[in-house]
């Protein structure tokens, strides 16, 4: 059973649909007991970084998540990935700090948000798929990066450290290629 952390932010229904389509049992919850029983935990989220941290704090979820990420596969998606890092310019607040790196506003002559289908790049050319991005902030890090995209600058797309995975784009909105990546993330990831 895959648990989607329900903290009142984000378009969780689509992730739920995608997981169901892939054949996973899904539960949407913020109940620590239910989360503890899950095989995988997914931290979703769209919107504002500070608003998300505030919600996690209000719900008392921060110690719960810290426990979960140590004990089972833990996947942050979109804003959920950014929350895994130490700090964000968006609201100038600290994140969950599971991974080193900062979240910064994308500064570009190209339109921002970075919106649309972009190609995943990796060192060995695996995962070379077009996937759907929609975000104005990016994770600036050189560590734990599995895949990135080129938008006149490097956009961190997938990070993984052990059983902790972050996905910046929307695998649930990236067609069949995205579903396959989501499935792979749940089956151990990309290392």
């Amino acid at each position, binding site marked *: 059973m895959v648990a989607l952390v329900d903290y009142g932010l984000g378009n969780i229904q689509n992730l739920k649909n995608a997981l169901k389509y892939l054949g996973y049992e899904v539960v949407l919850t913020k109940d620590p007991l239910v989360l503890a029983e899950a095989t995988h935990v997914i931290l979703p989220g769209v919107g504002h970084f500070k608003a998300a941290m505030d919600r996690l704090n209000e719900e008392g979820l921060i110690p719960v998540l810290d426990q979960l990420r140590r004990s089972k596969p833990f996947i942050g998606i979109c804003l959920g990935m950014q929350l895994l890092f130490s700090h964000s310019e968006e609201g100038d607040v600290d994140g969950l700090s599971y991974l080193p790196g900062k979240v910064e506003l994308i500064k570009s002559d190209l339109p921002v948000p970075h*919106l649309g289908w972009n190609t995943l790049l990796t060192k060995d050319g695996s995962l070379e798929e077009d996937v759907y991005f929609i975000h104005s902030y990016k994770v600036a890090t050189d560590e734990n990066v599995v895949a990135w995209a080129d938008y006149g600058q490097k956009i961190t797309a997938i990070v993984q450290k052990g059983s902790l995975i972050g996905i910046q784009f929307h695998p649930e909105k990236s*067609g069949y290629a995205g579903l396959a990546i989501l499935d792979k993330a749940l089956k151990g990831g990309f290392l």
Partner: protein
Amino acid sequence: MIKKRIIPCLDVKDGIVVKGIQFKGLREVGDPVAMAKRYNDLGADELVFLDISATETGHALMVDVIRRTAEQLFIPMTVGGGLKSVEDISRMLNAGADKVSLNSAALRDPDLVRRSSEMFGAQCTCVAIDAKWDEEKGDWFCYTHGGKRPTEVLTLEWAKRVQDLGAGELLVTSMDYDGMKQGFDHRLLKKLMSIVNIPIIASGGGGNARHFVDLFKETDVSAGLAASIFHDEQVSIAEVKEACAKEGVAIRNV
């Protein structure tokens, strides 16, 4: 490199897709979920649903259309038409829409753009602009209510203003070019791209694959949208994509 998006637009009235062009007094209709699926399989990069229902029941059916589509289809969806409040927006996002597009309501209440952007993020707040050139005044003006009502709002100023209010994208329809099938309104789109730094979806005038190639070669817009030419199968999404790829336009292959 980010890919240029090809987007079919589905006009939905009371839960069914209606065609923009009337034919022998009869409007051909289609099931939105089935049509969405077909476009997905044909390589659409995104779908725009425009709710043209006039009744509350119609809007409720729209929510159901989005929900059912989202269960089966895993590409981005934008929903517009008749959204007046953050509650309306929330309803669509919860049903599975990725973005909403605000038009008449935003012109009436510009602060709605800011509220939407703050509550749900710039990335789900798209502002749709129906623009028409006024020869006498030598400028473009915004229209509301599906292009029926003129306003005094200058299109270029409005675009800049909604960007500042937090819009993450613009869906710009040139009313002068819409339905003409002579190509997109490059002059308007170029002007807009020089003013804003958010992605623009161009709409109005696309009649064949070449028009999309020209659009992407001559302007920096992010996407091209069309409705009837795709519905009537005058041109397929695959043809458009093939033509773009051949001319070196970055496009998503499916």
